[in-house]
């Protein structure tokens, strides 16, 4: 009996793959359910339940399904299951906090079965990233999932019947989720007879559980312990830069509540609208120090918005050097030689060491004369304030609250189109443009390229548009990138883990080596 026990930071809440988009849920579900398109460890699309796909015209994509795949209960997998899954999502899942339906909505997708092993997806215009989108949509079995109660019947195991490498075994809320080997998986031999996920929320406890052998492997080992873990012969650490960009987002309204002059009065105009000020703030950040002193050496300082290997990455953009003198000079040039005050907001339980980074940045900015106060909070409070915490908000009209905040953006699909659109494009509630742009940055030159890129199927052309948009944004310091998180896993000696960019912990990527 080969059992792999994994201590995870967050507990999966549901085994219904259409229930949420939380990583914690998805990584467990992925053991049981599969998608038409898989992502490789660098988040690039590869065949999954679909063996191939192509655009047969500007608005139609055809997916060829894999033959001979069976559900865990032995029923064959067909196009009907795919259509059912899409329909299930489109129909809305009662009570689901955040089903991935929106990926189907993007581009106005419609679908049809051509034959048992062929499915066509149509869009309302040229739309290049259908495959990437479908990599977000798990397929459930029509014959079991029809008419079941969302989430409830999946958690009990009744409907948790997929095509994936593992079978549902046990779901004990708060304690463990266990899956066992699917001997008939199309993807080949599965090494583990059983995989157990145990939620251990406290970092210190999770590490302790690894150290004393309660679990074989943990995600998110505390960064402070990384050096000693690496030195310890009994343990191995795997790591990979993630797709999550950590950046500081300035706000661009004319008057910002948290940007004050040295006497404590709200400043007008808002100095953050001056790109020299933004550049100065970027130059004042010592990204290497953050990497070495806070992140345990594990972060990738950057000036890009997607990590290396992702579609849209631009090698020519290098992280800003640490240059406080230049920063001060720039501030003086912009007319703020005496500095000013601002508050940097951030979450304290969302990203790796988020509160610590906020504090460190505050230190660095204060040193060049921008007196920075710090306010960190649990993510639930942070994000709802970030998005619409301002008193001018009303239902249907979101006004962000913070003037400067630390947040992150994960490029889930392995390609930059929706990253550029999300954080650099002008905010537009109707089109979904700039839905992560809570600084309300707006630059027509970026908008033009971003909107065009979303409709460009030609990869080279799209790459050019995206890189141009990114370069414009970075030149203008639309936001101040810090680094890509580097994700770590720690495991006992004798295990090897091919870490993946999208932060998920998959048992099939762990193998015994002794």
């Amino acid at each position: 009996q080969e059992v792999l026990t994994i201590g995870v930071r967050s507990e999966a809440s549901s085994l219904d793959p259409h229930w949420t988009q939380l990583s914690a849920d998805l990584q467990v579900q992925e053991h049981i359910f599969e998608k038409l398109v898989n992502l490789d460890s660098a988040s690039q699309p590869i065949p999954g339940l679909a063996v191939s796909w192509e655009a047969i015209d500007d608005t139609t994509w055809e997916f060829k399904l894999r033959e001979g795949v069976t559900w865990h209960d032995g029923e064959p997998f067909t196009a009907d299951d795919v259509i059912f899954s899409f329909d299930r999502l489109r129909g809305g899942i009662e009570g689901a906090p955040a089903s991935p339906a929106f990926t189907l909505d993007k581009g106005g997708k419609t679908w049809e079965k051509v034959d048992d092993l062929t499915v066509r997806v149509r869009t309302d215009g040229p739309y290049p990233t259908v495959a990437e989108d479908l990599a977000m949509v798990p397929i459930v079995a029509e014959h079991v999932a029809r008419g079941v109660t969302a989430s409830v019947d999946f958690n009990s195991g009744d409907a948790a019947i997929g095509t994936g490498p593992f079978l549902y075994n046990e779901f004990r809320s708060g304690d463990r989720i266990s899956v066992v080997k699917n001997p008939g998986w199309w993807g080949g031999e599965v090494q583990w007879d059983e995989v157990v996920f145990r939620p251990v929320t406290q970092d210190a406890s999770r590490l302790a559980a690894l150290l004393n052998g309660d679990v074989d492997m943990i995600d998110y080992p505390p960064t402070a312990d990384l050096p000693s873990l690496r030195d310890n012969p009994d343990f191995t650490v795997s790591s990979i830069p993630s797709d999550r960009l950590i950046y500081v987002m300035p706000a661009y309204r004319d008057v910002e509540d948290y940007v004050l002059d040295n006497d404590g009065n709200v400043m007008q105009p808002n100095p953050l609208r001056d790109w020299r000020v933004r550049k100065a703030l970027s130059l004042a950040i010592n990204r290497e120090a953050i990497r070495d002193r806070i992140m345990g050496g594990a972060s990738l300082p950057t000036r890009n918005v997607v990590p290396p290997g992702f579609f849209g990455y631009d090698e020519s953009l290098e992280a800003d050097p640490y240059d406080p003198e230049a920063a001060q000079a720039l501030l003086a040039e912009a007319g703020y030689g005496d500095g000013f005050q601002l508050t940097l907001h951030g979450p304290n339980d969302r990203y790796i060491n988020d509160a610590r980074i906020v504090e460190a940045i505050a230190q660095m900015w204060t040193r060049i004369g921008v007196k920075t106060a710090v306010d960190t909070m649990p993510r639930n409070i942070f994000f709802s304030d970030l998005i619409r915490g301002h008193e001018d908000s009303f239902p249907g009209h979101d006004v962000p609250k913070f003037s400067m905040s630390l947040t992150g953006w994960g490029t889930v699909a392995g390609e930059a189109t929706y990253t550029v659109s999300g954080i650099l494009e002008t905010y537009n509630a109707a089109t979904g443009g700039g839905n992560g742009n809570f600084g309300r940055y707006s630059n027509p030159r970026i908008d033009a390229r971003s909107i065009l890129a979303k409709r460009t199927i030609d990869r080279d052309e799209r790459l050019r548009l995206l890189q141009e948009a990114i370069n414009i944004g970075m030149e203008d310091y639309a936001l101040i990138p810090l680094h890509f998180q580097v994700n770590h896993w720690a495991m006992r000696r004798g295990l090897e883990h091919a870490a993946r960019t999208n932060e998920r912990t998959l048992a099939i990527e762990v193998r015994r080596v002794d």
Partner: protein
Amino acid sequence: MSAGAVTRPEQAGPVDPAGAPRPAEASAFAAVARAYARSLIAMTALVVFAIIAVAALLAPWIAPQNPYDLTQVDLLDNLLPPGSESFSGQIYWLGTDGQGRDILSAILYGLRISLLVGLASGVIALLIGAAVGLVSAYRGSWLDATIMRIVDLQLSFPTILVALILLVILGRGVDKIVFALVVVQWAYFARTVRGVALVENSREYIEAARGLKLGHLRILFGHLLPNCMPTLLVVATVQVASAISLEATLSFLGLGLPPTQPSLGLLIANGFDYMQSGRYWISLLPGVVLLVTIVSINVVGDRLRDVLNPRLAR
């Protein structure tokens, strides 16, 4: 229980064996102080607490660094073990934390916040609780019943939950914590004071005061309150200690204070991530100080309970 009602009071206590007047004009305070000083442990605790309190009070003047001033904290000095020297030649006697903050200074300032939180919430809760409890005991009847129902409700709800919910709702900050702690604690005071006040209220000196037509306010605050004071004081010390401890727990749960102005609890919580990598000082040292502080307050409270025990004092 009225069992003791018929004992002859002469037998009440050994302090004044045959009821003879004492030779010295001993003030009550001096007597208590003398009785207190008889316990070496309690004296030590008092001295320790005094040192801690003074250190906390003088933190801005004696701390080598202002840990809240970000220009004085350097990330490049972080995680230094005790006794290390900084870039600028300053010595960090107790090491530095993850942000490069001098632990010694952070402890001193953290003490200030912890004590402030404990004392402020203790005092405010005491004032509210004492007033409510006194009036409740004195007025009696439906007012008493109503107030005590409310107190019961409040008490039947676990402190940590109330504080948690309040902080989730109110947000973070010293004032919010103090508010949450007051909400949690006032009922303890109210109930204790009411209990004592009921006993005192049934004593004949209160009846005498009524017979003398002294006025309700005067009776309440001039006669009843001073006699409830000893018990109040004892409850207060315990509550202050538990407030400090509760604040630490809330900080640990991420609902405490802003990270740039850490209390002792927050220092401990933050430092714990470094514990397993051998950087014990970040969490352990503030922990020890917190421990010593709370223990010393508790010991002082215990001793006060003993020496202020009415059975011994009268």
